[in-house]
Structures are given as C-alpha cells and as structure tokens.
C-alpha cells in the first residue's frame, strides 16, 4: 500500500448461500442481526452497523407507516429509550441482489416511557439503497414474531431481496399485544411440501404448494391475489392486480447450465388462474414442472414467494430426481 493504515474501520463477514451469518451488536448478549442468503454469489460479504435513535411513543418516525413506532432496545437506553436502525452494507459480484431471510434479536425496553405493553402488529421495516438513519422506510418484510416480555429477546423474522439497506423493528402501539411465547406469522412457510427436507420432484409431474397467509397480527388474509410478473422495482407488472398479492418464481441453487436454465422469473402453473384460494387464508399453487431442459437430475431449486409488502421467502428446497 502507499502508506500505513491507521485503523480497520469495519470487518466484513463472508456470506455463504444457505448459511447464517450472525452480526452481534449492543452491550447485551441478545442483540443480533442474522442474515441467511439463499442464492448469493460466492465472495459476497456484509457489514452491519447499528445506529441508535430516540424512541417516541407517538407514531410517525416512518413516513410511510404512520401508525407505527420503532422498538426501543433495553441495552441502548441512555437518558431515555432508544431505538436502533441497522445499516446493512454489502459487496459482491452480484451487486448483492440475492434473496435472503433475516432475523433480528433484541431485548425490548419495558420502562414506562418506552414500551411497557406487549408488542402488537410487529413490523420489520426496510429501505434499500440508503444509509441509516432514515424516515423513508418503504417495505415491511415481516414474516414472523414471537411475543416476549420486556427485557427478553423477541425474535423478529423477515425476508427480502437486496443488500444495501436500513432496517428497523417497529410495532403498532394500539394493536393488541402478542403474548409471550406466541408466534404470529404472515407466511410461516409451506404447509405442503416440507420446509425442512429436500423435496424430490420429477419434471413433468405437477407439484402442489399449499400455505396459509396472515396479517401482522396473525389474522388470516382471505383476499390474497396472484401477480403473474413483477417489475424490477418489486411492483406488480400484471394489470389490475391489487394488494395484497403474491408472486412466485424459481431460483436455481445448482450451478450447472441445465439447472440455471430451469430457473424462471414466473413460476408456471397448471391452471391459468395460478393461485387457488382455498378460503380462510389458505392458498394453493399447482406448479407445472414440465420442461424440455435435459440433465436436471440433482438440480436443486427453491420456489420464491414475493409479496406486495416487499417481503419474500423461499422456505422449501426441491431437487430434481430425474
């Protein structure tokens, strides 16, 4: 180098697709941000920087979410309750445009000037391509939250795409609190097939996908619509589709040419309508796996569900058996 460095300003962790990278922060042993990329490129690396900001019991810290307040962290308390926004910085050959799931852990400040009641209608807000602090959060990538008492760790989970982002945990102070130990999920994963095992598929044989979809309080959403195609900015490209909507795509995890070729931005359905509304918040999509691509044996893929909120999830792993 042309001179002697005086300091190391940041140590970036390598990201590996399918593995969780933990970024502890704060003084407590509960605070961390965990990032699990699903389809990141080799060599991607990330750095998480917490930025504290004053908590207010009056909603309005996020312009696009006027009913929410940010969640105060107990270990960041200093002359009053403090929230924490997390700045995720990323570098990589894929410009960090990968799909990921994220989990945020922290201890809530339960003092009377902070959040003395249980958290209700939790949110996991994000704005991409900006530094923290920001008031312009655009998406709520919330997927699940487990209720907890003040001072203990409430795991907040979300999922989305992109890598240069500012995140914050938030909630609606007027919503009913979620009891300790109770988990609410918008999309907990598939009810079928398995979210934990490798699901074999045979090209040509349809694969039924079944799931439930709820709001941030855990109530069934009965009017989920199907978006056949999405724009690059995450909006629905299908005319006439209104929120709430879901879009399905297929991402390949195996690097073979055949496997990469079978990936598709719009997952084909056996039915023209695509999404089947089974009522009471239950939905199904019959994946048409027919393809002319040869040599798919061993190819691993994930079905990606992208929601109008900006959240995304790819809970199940599939592998072509033939």
């Amino acid at each position, binding site marked *: 180098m042309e*001179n002697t460095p005086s300091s190391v300003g940041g140590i970036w962790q390598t990201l590996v697709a399918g593995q*969780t990278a933990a970024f502890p922060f704060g003084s407590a042993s509960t605070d961390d941000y965990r990032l699990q990329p699903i389809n990141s490129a080799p060599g991607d690396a990330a750095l998480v920087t917490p930025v504290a900001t004053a908590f207010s019991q009056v909603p309005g810290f996020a312009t696009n979410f006027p009913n929410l307040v940010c969640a105060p962290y107990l270990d960041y308390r200093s002359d009053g309750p403090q929230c924490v926004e997390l700045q995720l910085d990323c570098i990589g050959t894929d410009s960090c445009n990968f799909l990921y799931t994220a989990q945020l852990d922290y201890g809530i400040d339960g003092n009377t000037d902070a959040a003395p009641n249980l958290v209700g209608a939790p949110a996991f807000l994000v704005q991409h391509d900006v530094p923290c602090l920001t008031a312009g959060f655009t998406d709520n990538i919330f997927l699940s939250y487990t209720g907890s008492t003040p001072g203990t760790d409430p795991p907040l989970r979300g999922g989305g795409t992109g890598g240069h982002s500012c995140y914050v945990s938030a909630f609606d102070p007027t919503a009913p609190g979620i009891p300790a130990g109770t988990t609410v999920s918008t999309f907990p994963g598939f009810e079928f097939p398995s979210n934990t095992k490798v699901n074999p598929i045979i090209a040509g044989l349809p694969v039924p996908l079944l799931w439930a979809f709820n709001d941030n309080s855990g109530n069934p959403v009965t009017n989920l619509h199907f978006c056949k195609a999405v724009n690059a900015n995450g909006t629905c490209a299908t005319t006439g589709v209104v929120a709430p909507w879901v879009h399905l795509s297929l991402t390949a995890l195996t690097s073979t040419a055949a496997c990469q070729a079978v990936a598709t931005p719009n997952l084909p359905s056996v039915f023209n309508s695509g999404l089947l509304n089974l009522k009471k918040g239950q939905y199904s999509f019959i994946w048409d796996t027919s393809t002319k691509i040869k040599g798919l044996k061993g190819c691993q893929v994930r079905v990606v569900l992208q929601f109008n909120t900006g959240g995304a999830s790819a809970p199940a792993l599939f592998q072509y058996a033939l």
Partner: protein
Amino acid sequence: MKKILMSATALSMKKVAFAILCVTLLMLAATPGWATDDPCNAPTVGVPAGPVGSNDPTGSCGVVITITGTITTTSTGSSGSLSATITGGGQPTAYDGDEDQLVGIINNSNVTVGAITLTRSSEGGDALFAFDGDGPCAPAQHAPAYSWCSNVGFTGYEGPTNTFTRISSTPGFQPARPLGLLWKIPLRP
C-alpha cells in the same frame, strides 16, 4: 422457538493464519520463485528480505493486521465482536525505505472474513490508496509479472487473493463510506 442455521465451518475454533495481501513496490529484478508466489506469505512484521531477484526467505510484511474475536450464537441471540490490530508500519518497515508497505492479514477469529475497511486518519505522505504505479505488478518493479497481475481491473497493487473497492477520500454511505476496502480475501478461521 427460533431456528438457528449456523454452519459448522463458521463455528470452527480452528485458528489458521493466512497471509493474504501484499500490495507494495517490490524490488528490482525477479526470480522464478517470485514470479508466482506471494512474497508476504508469513505474516510477521519486518522488512521484506532480499533484493528482487531472490525469494524472500522470511515472507515478512511491513504491516500485519490481526483480526481477533469470537462470535457465539445461542438460541436467544449472538454475542461477541470482532476487532483488528495493526502492527508495524512507518518508515522502519517500509519496503522502499520511505512509506510504501507490504501488508499481511491474520484471521484469528472464528468467522470467515470477506473484506476489511482500511482508513488512514492523518495523511502524512502518500494517501493510503493513492496508487501511483509502483505496485508489485508494475513492470519496473517486478518482472516477469506475478500470475495475478493480468486479472481484469487490477490496479497493480493487489495480492493473489484480494482486490480493492470503494476507494474514497470522503466518508459517506455506499459506495463512498469505506475509505478503502479490501475484498475477496478468503480469511477463514
């Protein structure tokens, strides 16, 4: 109940030192041994030995950055932190007798490090990333060129396994926030 997915590799406590970066002016001539080898292959502080044309028997670096720390993940959260110390540097270890430095990095933490942000608070002499053509890939400094010198986009100051990105003199967010970033360094614990 949270489900934690943590790789066994990431949790490994194995500590392996890697010398991964050597960006510097090298001496005057070359030998076959220097044509492809990383001269900063043993990250201890010292002036790189031997004239160009002979292999460096010590593998010394003018500056050594040592990353330490342990990140522990449990069902309720993660704790720990990573830190780095810089040893060596200045005129005593400059390979040119002035300020240019050969830099090595040791990762003694339990996580894989993909990049580090380097800064220099007071710019006495040349700025940290003010590359002025006297890096190891400059023909006048080393011939024949190292095998990695032909990599597309290289500045001529890289080592065999690293590159630079986001070089800036102004603090700020992406892409300018880091004052220089070493990237693609396979620093496994």
